[in-house]
């Protein structure tokens, strides 16, 4: 049965059967063997690139026109996680034959760009045939500066691991570089409060006021290249090349935008309150508490102005509720209570929320008096949020000041606030329960202290 002749007979029948079952309407022509160079020439003609032939193979290089994209590198370097002012930056975005970073997915277009002063110099590399990968990757490696940083969008999760896979598939070691700045997590942290999703196209419209017309959809791209491989027609790729060029430019603009809006403290007053709140958390994550506080103060000033886009809240749990855990970023630890973690995500940044955030931060840096004052300021707003703030005042007085009487006073005020809420039809049962327990415990504690005395 393992004899090759028999197998081919079975294959022939299998084929006939398969054909009958699917009734394909096209006749199966044997594909003519196309020379890689011929394919490269077609691409080069279609996208205005040049064919580069090396002893390792052939690829297409397209040097785009320089674009003016200003950036203040010193301002950028002042932000957490950012490269030092003198570090060369290389923007990188790949187009691939599929999702995932497994071994059968090919990168066929790599868009790169580097800065020369305020001008962005784009270079795109194209793979004319799968057989030419070695030359193609060698060209990529040549363009990555060993002392430079890559700048990508989701490149840590996708573009770079995929390229590493491609290099390891027998094309030499992946190029060395000094760092990797992935803008996706930063965008999520800073701007998610005013965006519906974090796709690069959304970033462009929301932040950079760029609108792409007639762009190719991301889902279409793998199919475009596979079609090109099948029929050799380069028109499949023209839109993809354009799409990639815009992506790379947008990456640079995005970085410039971040540096300009948030890197320069003098301009914080013009920034969106929510962006500043996100930045505050980013600072906080890097233990730069003073910067974080400064950021929040600026945000509070900014929130006095009308926001360009009113924040909308999608969270099921109101952000000010004690159930809503503050998000300082990083990996979520085990919840310290039964409250659902991460409930505050996606809530808008109102002034009151900023106040709460600030009060929490003050507590965190042990500025107890300031924290108490901040919570009292929130309490003045009244409503369930005010009650929640009074619970915080009670906690601080009890645990940080050991002022049980004062804690009880705050808790009683909180209960009064909640009673008013209930009578006006805004009952907050879990707060009532919390405050009830607290008052009970504080009374027992006071009694014990009195008994001991």
């Amino acid at each position: 049965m393992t004899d090759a002749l028999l197998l081919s007979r079975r294959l022939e029948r299998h084929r006939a059967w398969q054909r009958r079952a699917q009734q394909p309407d096209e006749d199966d022509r044997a594909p003519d063997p196309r020379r890689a160079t011929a394919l490269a020439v077609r691409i080069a003609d279609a996208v205005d690139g040049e064919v580069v032939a090396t002893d390792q193979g052939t690829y297409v290089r397209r040097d785009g026109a320089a674009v003016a994209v200003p950036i203040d590198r010193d301002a950028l370097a002042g932000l957490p996680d950012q490269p030092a002012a003198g570090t060369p930056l290389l923007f990188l975005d790949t187009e691939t034959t599929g999702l995932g970073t497994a071994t059968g997915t090919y990168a066929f277009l790599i868009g790169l760009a580097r800065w020369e002063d305020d001008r962005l110099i784009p270079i795109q590399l194209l793979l004319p045939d799968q057989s030419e990968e070695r030359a193609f990757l060698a060209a990529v490696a040549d363009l990555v500066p060993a002392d430079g940083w890559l700048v990508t969008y989701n490149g840590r999760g996708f573009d770079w691991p995929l390229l590493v896979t491609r290099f390891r598939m027998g094309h030499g070691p992946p190029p060395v570089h000094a760092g990797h700045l992935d803008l996706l997590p930063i965008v999520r942290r800073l701007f998610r409060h005013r965006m519906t999703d974090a796709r690069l196209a959304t970033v462009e419209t929301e932040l950079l006021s760029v609108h792409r017309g007639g762009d190719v959809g991301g889902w279409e791209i793998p199919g475009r290249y596979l079609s090109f491989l099948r029929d050799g027609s380069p028109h499949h790729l023209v839109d993809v090349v354009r799409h990639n060029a815009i992506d790379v430019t947008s990456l640079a603009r995005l970085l410039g935008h971040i540096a300009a809006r948030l890197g320069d403290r003098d301009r914080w007053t013009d920034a969106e309150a929510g962006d500043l709140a996100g930045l505050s958390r980013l600072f906080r994550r890097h233990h730069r508490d003073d910067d974080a506080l400064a950021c929040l103060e600026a945000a509070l000033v900014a929130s006095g102005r009308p926001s360009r886009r009113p924040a909308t809240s999608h969270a099921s749990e109101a952000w000010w509720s004690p159930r809503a855990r503050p998000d300082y970023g990083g990996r979520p630890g085990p919840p310290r209570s039964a409250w659902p973690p991460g409930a505050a995500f996606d809530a808008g940044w109102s002034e009151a929320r900023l106040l709460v955030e600030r009060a929490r931060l003050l507590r965190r840096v042990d500025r107890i008096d300031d924290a108490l004052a901040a919570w009292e300021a929130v309490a003045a707003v009244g409503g369930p949020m005010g009650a929640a703030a009074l619970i915080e005042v009670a906690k601080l007085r009890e645990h940080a000041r050991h002022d049980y009487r004062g804690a009880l006073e705050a808790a009683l005020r909180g209960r009064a606030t909640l009673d008013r809420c209930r009578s006006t039809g805004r009952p907050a049962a879990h707060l009532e329960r919390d405050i009830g327990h607290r008052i009970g415990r504080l009374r027992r504690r006071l009694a014990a202290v009195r008994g001991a005395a």
Partner: protein
Amino acid sequence: MRTYAPAPTVAVLERLLAEPSLARGVVHHQVIPARDGTFASFPDWLDDRIAEGLRGRGIERLYGHQAEAIEAVHAGDDVVIVTPTASGKTLCYALPVLQELAEDPSARALFLFPTKALGQDQVAEFAMLSKAAGLTISSNTYDGDTPAPIRSAIRKAGQVVVTNPDMLHSAILPHHTKWFQLFEQLRVIVIDELHTYRGVFGSHVANVIRRLLRLCEHYGSRPIIVCCSATIGNPGELAAMLTGRPARLVDRNGAPSGERHVLLVDPPIIDQATGARGSALTLAQRWALPFMRAGRQTIVFGRSRVAVEIMLTGLRESLRQDAGPRSRVRGYRGGYLPTERRAIERGLRDGEILGVVSTNALELGVDIGRLDVSILAGYPGSVAATWQQIGRAGRRANVSVAIVVASPAPVDQYVIHHPEFLLDRTPEEARADPDNLHVLLAHLRCATFEMPFDPGTVFGPGPVDELLAFLGEAGQVRQASDGRWYWSSENFPASEVSLRSAAPENVVIIDTTPDRPHVLGEVDLFSAQVLVHTNAIYLHESVQYHVDRLDWDERKAYVTRVDIDHYTYANRAVTLKPLDVFGEAVVAGGRRVHGEVMVASLVTLFKKLKFGTDENVGWGPIHLPELELQTTAYWLTADGLAGGWRRDELDVALLGAGRAIQAVAAVLLMVDPRDLGLVSQVRSPHQDAPTIYLYESMPGGVGLSERLWQRHDELVEGAAGLVASCACEAGCPACTGPRLEPDVNAKALALRLLRGLGATTGVSVPAA
């Protein structure tokens, strides 16, 4: 006759054999004498730390087979080790791997187990050995349960990676660049429970190994392959089929064993006319109870979860009535929590647990020590499995007892009345066909995804070009300018290929019982027609599920868990057309042929049958489209029987003989009878003679039909023997199948036909 006092195993056995109601059912009683072990000292080259570690765990020397295996691996040979239950097979591969790692910590080893649970057991045992030797070795399971952060650590630094074929197929091979440390330094591959890699699963796994070895070659490693198998007829051949390389066979068991009694027992006939027999489950309990009362550690094997629960309930009930050690009898099967299972295993090892009722979950390499008595309620489906279950009883110094209780099924009846089949013959051969076209093409896609193919590369049976050209027509692969074949699709082929079935298209089975529905498994379309049609009872790891809805267009079956006393059997109306002949020979009374066939199957109704008795308790309609199956088949034509038969008689004879042949074929080839479909044609439009076809129910076949073709004489002889020795008068479900027409003597007709085909067994039996 109730004795609660502890008594030796022999004494209890003698007492039971003196009881006429029990003794009457004993068809065969054989005593296997005690055997001394053969021993060898640790090899000179063994690292002192490892030897010290072994001594520290009470191991002063090795069994003969262990020493032989270890020497062979050390010398760089591929080895297949055949070991009965509990004979210390772990050391056979653990010691060479430990030695390799003691010499060079950058070395890597890959252990493959068919299931996650076995892998986890072995990792624990291996870790214990390395700890005893004072070596710091990172050995980890890498399976679906491994958390993501640990995964990347294992990829980089795991020295011993323990996984299963499914994981290798879908998570490791397609991501091989992330595993380059493993592939570059891979020294040893261990394939344990080799005998489970048969049929479709084996055919797939063989191709996964082909892909694995192809990548090893790419990374410049040439690992030694160590296979461990339970006793089967062709371990060397199976290992060679699976790995594509010849292996040195180590099969002289050096472990000592005590005297062992093996009894084959048949339940009494209840109804002489129909030949109906009593339940195997009841009889198994009657034999088990006295041993438990006497304090002998006893294991009872049931064939399904339901059987296990029935016997467990019965045994506990009986023990409670007479204040016996009820709580020391436990159940063990799939569905119990891992911690619960571990506790039971520990209890068996230290003697705290007296009896256990288990499915074949305890047949595989789980360490429970050695027990006194093993009772099999029903033939487990293969000689190999029978010996594995029998092997659970076997004290080194004491007498042990194994009892096989037959059920009324034809396969059981055949086995029980042919003791030589179980006791004297070599066990069945495990078959797999790695070159099954469907399977091969599926893995060729995965292999191309993993690495492009050079033209003329040999993968499996031959050069890949023609097959790749075929895949190229569908656009999944393409030949680039350099002539190499590249993957050219957006899809991830490994996720489209399940190792447990052959067809490319599957029906996914979704369990809606829990709050969050999850995928229970999948079946190929052809099997789906009969297994998961709406209102079917689907059995998965011995758990019953009711199919609430089969969405044929979406290829999804929605099931909920149930616990009821019946199962379903769907009637398949099958037409068959031969396509090609691979082999043909003239035999007595006709011809034997094997070749390729097209089977068209239409399923229109199903029956509900009671467990145990197979009594029909209802039926229902099935509305599904007709399906075509291209597969391989074995058939025999009765050219010489043209004259002398009435057409209706010939019809009954063909069907009856066919059923008997099907049962014998299932026994000989160690497969489920359902893996072989039966079609009989009085006047075949294709053969011009009465014909019996046995076709493989897996698309493309896995090589069963070729073996049947080769063993034609045994099939005919065995079928005649099965029918002739059956206690019924005129045919019954145990031999020629259910009697459809009461006035026809199916038994006599089938025998007459089989004699015409050259059988000699049935000659002396007068047609009743």
